[in-house]
């Protein structure tokens, strides 16, 4: 049980940390969004999954419904994160491109040629 929790937590923490390190290392807004969105969403799924497993395990072991409530509310928070995170990233990318921040080192930019407004 403890081993499973430690494995889930270490995967989650590893990807969350990678997200913030990628935020420092990458050169422009779009590549930073890649690191920030994907890594933090995936890491948060794993850390929340460990809390869900912990809650359901203690609910079954002790019968106290407080732990079940903990797991249920964590599921709701996880659904909120999964739905809102890519949508927010899409909004930021679109606003960045329309406000004139161009991708650095780009080999092709078809959106600039299309020029929608």
């Amino acid at each position, binding site marked *: 049980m403890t081993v499973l929790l430690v494995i889930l937590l270490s995967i989650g923490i590893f990807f969350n940390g990678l997200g913030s390190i*990628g935020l420092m290392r990458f050169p*422009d807004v779009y590549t930073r969004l890649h690191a920030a969105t994907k890594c933090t969403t*995936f890491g948060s799924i794993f850390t929340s999954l460990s809390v869900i497993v912990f809650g359901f395990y203690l609910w079954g072991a002790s019968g106290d*419904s407080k732990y079940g409530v903990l797991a249920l509310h964590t599921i709701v928070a996880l659904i909120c994160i999964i739905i809102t995170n*890519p949508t927010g990233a*899409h909004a930021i990318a679109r606003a960045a491109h*329309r406000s004139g921040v161009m991708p650095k080192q780009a*080999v092709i930019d*078809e959106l600039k040629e299309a020029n929608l407004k």
Partner: protein
Amino acid sequence: MVSFIVTFLLSFVAYLFLTASQGEILGLWSNYEIIAALIISLIVAAMASRVLFQKKSYHLLNPLRWVIFLGYLVGPFFFAMAKANIDVAYRVITGKINPGIVKISPNLKNDAAITLLANSITLTPGTLSVDIDEKNNDLYIHWINVTNLKPTIEDICGSFPIWARRIAE
């Protein structure tokens, strides 16, 4: 009428999910909580029933589509997401990037299908949806490692348009 019932059921389930604690019914809710949930969800449904289903299309209510959606989430989507994260990890550590913005035309007509496809693209390997051409539903995608300048749909997102069409169209 259908939209009223669906909004009522959704808000009822959400209220019960958020207020679960001790009580008589199933050991999680008390009787007063159920009555309060009924009253509040009736009020919410009366006020907000026109927000859902603005285009009067009810095909998303089919339970078979929900089952396919869940299968899609735990199967191909989760696998692609794990692959995406290992790919991003490799690029964070080595710093090798070759970015660009490309255009694909997935030929989807429905708003829900486009939303599902764009969110899937954002969370899967090396791609991030930037903008949409609302006339003919072309997606503009930032690709972190451009391998050919005129990509096919399989290069960007694999089998996701087929799944999106199966789920939401």
